[in-house]
């Protein structure tokens, strides 16, 4: 329970890799089959549509850049989910943290809109991070101190945060120049930079670096081991002087900080203003990615890219092939269900065959 069993010496390296890879391959295969089945049901040619999706995801430099644009918030939301999961917590709160990050960062931007970018941008990012961290700390505190289930509280807080965004952009923060459109004034252009004239911004670099650093810390540091011990057996953790409730608050607040960073980056660089609908379910997508990546931050990088491609392709399919955007949501659900089914069955087979 506490430590992974050492691999049997008799098992050759190759066989071990095959065993690890088989479920992943089975998952991809089954997912493509169900996706093809879905396209048949909605009356689209399955093979051609799947090929179109691949083209729209990575086929040319524009598609690739749009995939990277989607990868950014998804990766950060995945990190917001997987860090609490390393302590065994099931947080579904990345969406709410994203909204709170957007709100806090926007508050700073509106207050200091005339400040030079060199001051404004760091302050804006810090505020966004703080907003998300607070929104993670609340369920972390409730879980750590009062033993209130974090899955339910994070889900409820998502709705509260989304409504707070609406209250602000329909109310005190609405730019009268928008002629009734609920949004704040525009953010200063280029605050987060752009790469090669695309919409890709500094947020991608932040996400990438955080994922790598987090991967190293979780795998190598004392703290990473503490989380693993507490997850495996809280009683043992307590006996060697570790505090579950403190760690619950730490991982939830840190995870929230990642979600908040996603929110302010998305608002400043992609939307250019705070408005309703800044997240199209990035939080849930991040949850899916964290799960697919086995809660490993480094593996979450390529998985975010693949799922980001799926969503970017969904947007393009809507524009060019008249496939409604909701189909990207359905495909994500099918992908998640496939991953769960394959994971469950392969765990069962492993148990059965030792």
């Amino acid at each position: 329970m506490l430590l992974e069993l050492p691999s049997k010496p008799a098992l050759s390296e190759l066989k071990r890799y095959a065993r690890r890879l088989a479920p992943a391959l089975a998952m991809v295969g089954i997912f493509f089959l169900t996706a093809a089945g879905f396209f048949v049901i909605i009356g689209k040619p399955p093979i051609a549509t799947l090929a179109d999706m691949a083209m729209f995801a990575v086929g040319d430099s524009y598609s690739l850049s749009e995939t990277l644009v989607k990868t950014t918030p998804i990766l950060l939301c995945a990190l917001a989910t997987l860090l609490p999961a390393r302590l065994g917590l099931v947080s579904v709160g990345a969406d709410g943290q994203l909204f709170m990050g957007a709100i806090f960062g926007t508050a700073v931007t509106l207050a200091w809109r005339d400040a030079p970018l060199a001051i404004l941008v760091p302050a804006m990012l810090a505020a966004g991070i703080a907003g998300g961290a607070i929104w993670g700390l609340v369920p972390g505190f409730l879980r750590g101190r009062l033993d209130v289930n974090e899955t339910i509280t994070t889900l409820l807080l998502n709705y509260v945060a989304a409504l707070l965004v609406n209250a602000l952009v329909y109310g005190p923060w609405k730019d009268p120049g928008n002629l009734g459109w609920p949004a704040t004034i525009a953010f200063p252009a280029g605050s987060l930079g752009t790469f090669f004239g695309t919409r890709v911004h500094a947020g991608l670099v932040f996400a990438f670096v955080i994922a790598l650093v987090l991967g190293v810390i979780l795998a190598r540091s004392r703290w990473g081991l503490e989380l693993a011990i507490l997850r495996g057996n809280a009683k043992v953790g307590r006996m060697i002087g570790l505090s579950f409730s403190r760690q619950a608050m730490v991982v939830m607040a840190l995870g929230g900080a990642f979600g908040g960073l996603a929110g302010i980056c998305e608002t400043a660089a992609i939307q250019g203003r705070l408005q309703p609908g800044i997240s199209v379910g990035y939080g849930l997508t991040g949850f899916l990615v964290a799960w697919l990546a086995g809660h490993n931050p480094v593996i979450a990088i390529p998985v975010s890219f693949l799922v980001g491609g799926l969503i970017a392709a969904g947007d393009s399919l809507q524009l060019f092939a008249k496939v409604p955007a909701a189909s990207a949501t359905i495909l994500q659900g099918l992908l998640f269900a496939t991953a769960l089914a394959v994971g469950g069955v392969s765990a069962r087979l492993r148990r059965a065959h030792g």
Partner: protein
Amino acid sequence: MAEFDAITLATWIAASSRSATPLLLVMLGETLTQRTGVINLGVEGEMLMGACFGFAAGATTGDPLLGLAAGAAAGVVLSTVHAGLVLGARANQIGSGLAVWIIGLGVTSYYGRAFVGGKVDSLRPLGAHFADAPAFIRTILDQVTPTAPLALVLAGVAGVWLYRTRSGLIWRTVGESAEVARALGIRPVSVRLQSILLGGALAGLGGAVLSVDYTQTWAQDITKGKGLVAVGLVIVARWNPYLVIPTALLFGVSETAVLRLQAGGVAISPSLLATTPYLLALVVIILSQSQAWRAGSMPADLTAIFRSSRAAP
């Protein structure tokens, strides 16, 4: 003045019970599912399925009863995904519920587009059948359709069944310990399958009541987390069908109060007012959950799910 007060009270009772009905049905279903040791966050998606396809059936046939039946059926259909993943593949229950939610959200946004802005007939208020009832009763019956009393009766029947009958005892045993149940010759998987499907039917019915009978509209993501709120409130109601009634009514009263405030022209942002049910749910869950763990009223096998879901991957 006394007459006016009584009528106002009757109006509030009617409005609260109407708005509580969808939540009550979903909560009841989730309560029974959790009683057998299965948690299903997918009721949010199943409720959406019921709301969408119930509305579609009601709008195309013009028969609200058919709409409600179609909604319940749509909920059952989606709940088979949760059953397959959880019982068939032994997948993680929290993850499976979220997957089911995402699928329901996607499917209903996809097929619901055609019905946005559509019209549907609701069920007739009960008042017409009771012309000579006293004014107080009459006021309530004039504003209440059969779904509200039906939901109350269902909750009562579920309580009696769960606590007083042999099969109810079987369900409770499976929830406490599948192992003990197996030793008694009960097949836990079969009981859990039934409970997931029943939960799906009630969630779908709740969704259909919401779209066909209560709001008479369909919009994308119309449930806005009602199903998730219900999952949280099951804890508040202590996995007890009888306690589902007051818990749901509390939310009905709060929704009625919010609607009255808005209609009364109170200068609070409607979005801020709309946070009420979520914050109220948070507060009651915080107040009761820390108690519930200690009191041990949670089905024991469910506790294991909550604990084991911690080891997520």
